[in-house]
């Protein structure tokens, strides 16, 4: 038994796919301002493919989330494909191997973060999705004693705060880094989609 059920993992992916669909235009528009105007369509293409997976055919949440990660790698491309793909692949591995309480989820989140850091060679403060995910993992850790639900809510809030704080930064990784000073004041698309992912987790994995 892992920290969440396969059904919960499925609900998370379904919810995120829907949220991404609803926010694709907004994400692409953010990417228009500091990148190449495709982050929303990239994520949407990927999550549509993920949403088409048959949840009932997977016998563990890790198996499902691993397939989701591979599906993202195979369908998204760009920077976000390998990064989100790696996130889910690592998350999945740690989840199935971890304990069945909040600390299991924490381990999975941390593994996902480390995967993104390794793949993208970026760190906090570079104005990327890491600026939403890293504070979220921290907040989850701080609150994990209060149970998964409270920890996820705190994580989602921290992600949003991290996303907003990153807006004032100068990008040092990814396409936005070419803008130098001009990236200041623009909200990062990846940090935005990452915040949506954690908000979606809070909605769907809370009762774990």
């Amino acid at each position, binding site marked *: 038994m892992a920290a969440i059920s396969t059904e919960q993992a499925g609900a998370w992916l379904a919810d995120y796919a829907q949220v991404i669909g609803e926010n694709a235009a907004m994400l692409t*528009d953010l990417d228009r301002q500091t990148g*190449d105007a*495709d982050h929303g*369509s990239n994520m949407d293409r990927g999550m549509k493919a993920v949403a088409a997976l048959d949840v009932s055919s997977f016998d563990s949440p890790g198996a499902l989330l691993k397939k989701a990660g591979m599906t993202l790698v195979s369908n998204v*491309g*760009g920077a976000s*494909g*390998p990064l989100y793909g790696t996130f889910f692949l690592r998350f999945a591995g740690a989840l199935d191997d971890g304990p069945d309480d909040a600390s299991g989820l924490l381990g999975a989140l941390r593994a996902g973060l480390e995967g993104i850091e390794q793949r993208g060679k970026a760190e906090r403060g570079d104005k990327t999705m890491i600026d939403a995910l890293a504070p979220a993992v921290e907040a989850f850790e701080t609150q994990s004693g209060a149970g998964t639900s409270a920890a996820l809510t705190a994580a989602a809030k921290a992600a949003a705060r991290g996303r907003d704080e990153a807006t004032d930064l100068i990008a040092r990784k*990814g396409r936005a880094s070419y803008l130098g000073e001009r990236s200041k004041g623009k909200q990062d698309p990846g940090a935005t989609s990452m915040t949506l992912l954690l908000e979606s987790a809070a909605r769907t994995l809370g009762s774990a």
Partner: protein
Amino acid sequence: MKKLINDPADVVAEALKGVAAAHPDRLRVDHEQKIVYRRDAPRQGKVGLISGGGSGHEPMHAGYVGLGMLDAACCGEVFTSPVPDQMMAATTAVDGGAGVLHIVKNYTGDVMNFEMAAEMAAADSGVRVESVVTNDDVAVTDSLYTAGRRGVGVTVLLEKIVGAAAEEGRDLDAVLALAQQVNDNGRSMGMALTSCTVPAAGTPTFELADDEMELGIGIHGEPGRSTVKLAPAREIAQQLVEPVLADHDFTGAPAIVMLNGMGGTPLIELYLMYGEVAQILRKSGVEVARCLVGNYITSLEMAGCSVTVLRASDELLKLWDAPVNTTGLRWGV
């Protein structure tokens, strides 16, 4: 948005249908995977060359598949790097036993997707894969606090030169070393008069006033280093050539020069620009041995141009002059 398309989501798939219909003699298209193959790939004993990247840069890369150049091009969505599955499939398909070189332009997405593909290829298929990452864009001056210099125009020259070497039968190590040499000796700088519109986005990526231009652009319609006052061609040429020459020594060796259009600028303007560029190069003591003027690596319908200069050698010129038969470059055959 005014484009000759049907559904924005189908642009790449449908363009590949056109490529397949137009060039059945030279190309084979895997529509499922969005890979364009040289008709006669794999060639036994020849190092396989594959490249790929987001679409919207045509003729790059599919237009450079053929004798004397690439064996396969992996086509991503518009401005989105292809996925590792594509590079994996292409790698396996073009390997003729001599290994495969991945030609990657330095963008975060491209680098990561190709990296994953190389890791997977090494694990799964046993094909020896090497990679060269092009990064010739002098507009990116700071590579510590950025994703590093972008791969732009030199990629085209590299695919031609390295393609000739592979065709000649050189082994993977030699081909890789040559690719590195070409990348190390080439520099580019680009500018835009207008933005472009990604089909799926529907609105122009950036805005420019009537009296402004964007200097130091890449090839994804992303804004450049700075927005500056629109200037006459003569001054624009200066603004492009100076940073290129400042970054590398191009004197004392023959140079290959490319004056490239971004997709929406007509040939008459590109030739006019080339005239200005050639004059500056002459005054700077750069001896142009070969040149290309036209649309070779583009950003959809963006108006603008870029200048690429490659410090060559007699050997590179010989490889440059070797026969090539692709839809984008053709001579000697």
